């Protein structure tokens, strides 16, 4: 696959790994947070950690749109789905996220009609094909995914499709990074910046991080070589005493982002005064809602919802894991009450989540010797 396979070349990975090691100051420990869940997935899918020296620690950030959805909003989705005549549509990732009353999969088992779609336009097609049903799109995702929801709403308006609405849980990345940096108990050295969010917002919105916190940030692509090259660029900044925003993913990300997407976002959405992030608490201006101009497509206005705030299970420490303060296996219920089959926290549900990744792979990364048998 063009633009993919070339960035998965193992020989170049070996070389990059050695170059990175040569830039490490002996005895210094580097904590680099990869904000985006997609990066977390690549790190585990390709074993990127194996190419990095021991003193570089990759810490997983809050960039997984499924992990941050609070349980109360899953229950709101189920409440909508259980109204008769409603078809709820959502991305595959959402189907197994546990709410206060179970997941969407379990709601289906009780008779709800919740269908998985690949694109919000597929949800609109279901609405067009089922005029007698009320179709609701359960929208999640960061600034990468929000423009596609916006265009879908504009298309519904243009075609005059009435039986379609959006339950919007789109979130924005900058306030989440700010919340992480503001949390006292965290010591980070640098960021691997989001890749696909940056195709929309560009790299400029991250400039306050090196300016105010002296931390390098490199926007990275999603192939393993992209990540290794980004770590290399970060280490180069350390060795040259620089702290800047750099764009490794320049083949796709323009420094100023996608103007059309930004215009569509500004037209269709408005900032929510505050939004509760699972594990990070309530963060101001960190999520989107439909602007009043498109109120007739807002499922939160169309249906009255329990809107109950469901506290995370007391034992769940997803918040600390999301902020990189705790390692997944340091969470009290990791691997015992909370496992991929019986997930308590969303970090264990999503394949992007740090806990699911550590539960599967982490146990062996820790016993490096064990892996020697494979060399």
């Amino acid at each position: 696959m063009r633009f993919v396979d070339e960035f998965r070349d193992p020989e170049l990975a070996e070389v990059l790994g050695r170059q990175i090691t040569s830039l490490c100051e002996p005895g210094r420990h580097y904590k680099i947070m990869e904000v985006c869940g997609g990066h977390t997935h690549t790190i585990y899918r390709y074993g990127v950690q194996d190419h990095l020296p021991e003193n570089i620690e990759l810490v997983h950030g809050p960039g997984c749109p499924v992990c941050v959805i609070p349980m109360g909003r899953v229950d709101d989705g189920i409440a909508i789905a259980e109204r008769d005549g409603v078809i709820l549509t959502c991305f595959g990732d959402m189907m197994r996220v546990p709410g206060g009353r179970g997941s969407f999969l379990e709601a289906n088992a009780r008779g709800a009609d919740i269908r998985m779609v690949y694109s919000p336009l597929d949800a609109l097609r279901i609405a067009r094909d089922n005029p007698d049903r009320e179709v609701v799109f359960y929208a999640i995702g960061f600034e990468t995914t929000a423009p596609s929801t916006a265009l879908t709403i504009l298309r519904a308006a243009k075609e005059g499709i009435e039986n379609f609405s959006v339950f919007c849980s789109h979130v924005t990345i900058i306030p989440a990074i700010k919340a992480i940096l503001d949390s006292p108990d965290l010591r980070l050295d640098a960021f691997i910046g989001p890749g696909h969010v940056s195709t929309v917002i560009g790299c400029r919105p991250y400039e306050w991080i090196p300016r105010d916190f002296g931390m390098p940030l490199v926007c990275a692509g999603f192939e393993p070589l992209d990540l290794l090259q980004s770590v290399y660029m970060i280490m180069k900044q350390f060795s040259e005493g620089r702290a800047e925003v750099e764009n490794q993913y320049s083949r796709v990300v323009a420094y100023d982002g996608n103007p059309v997407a930004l215009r569509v976002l500004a037209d269709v959405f408005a900032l929510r005064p505050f939004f509760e992030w699972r594990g990070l608490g309530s963060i101001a201006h960190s999520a989107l809602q439909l602007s009043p101009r498109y109120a007739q497509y807002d499922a939160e206005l169309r249906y009255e919802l329990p809107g109950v705030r469901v506290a995370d299970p007391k034992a769940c420490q997803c918040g600390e894991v999301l902020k990189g303060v705790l390692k997944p296996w340091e969470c009290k219920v990791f691997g015992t009450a909370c496992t991929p089959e019986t997930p308590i926290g969303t970090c264990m549900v999503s394949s992007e989540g740090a806990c699911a990744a550590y539960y599967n792979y982490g146990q062996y990364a820790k016993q490096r010797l064990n892996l020697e048998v494979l060399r």
Partner: protein
Amino acid sequence: MCLAIPGQLVEFLPGNADQLALVDVVGVKRKINIGLMDDVKLEIGDYVLIHVGFAMSKVDEKEAAEALSMLELMGQAFTDELQAVAESSIE
């Protein structure tokens, strides 16, 4: 946080206020919406980044080639270096 992959533009499709195009990803074809790229001149054969059925941006082939050559150069420099070390012998 957002799975997106490069696909090659194969055909512009009528309808949908001509925001529709067909892309090919290793032999797999899918209709996608190119509404988010109104301000970009797209041609058949261009590569675009696809996320949940929408083209997000055009893949800049020059940038991709540059990034790769930089890596390969680094690789070459490193192998030259290793070779130099291997050949040098200090009596």
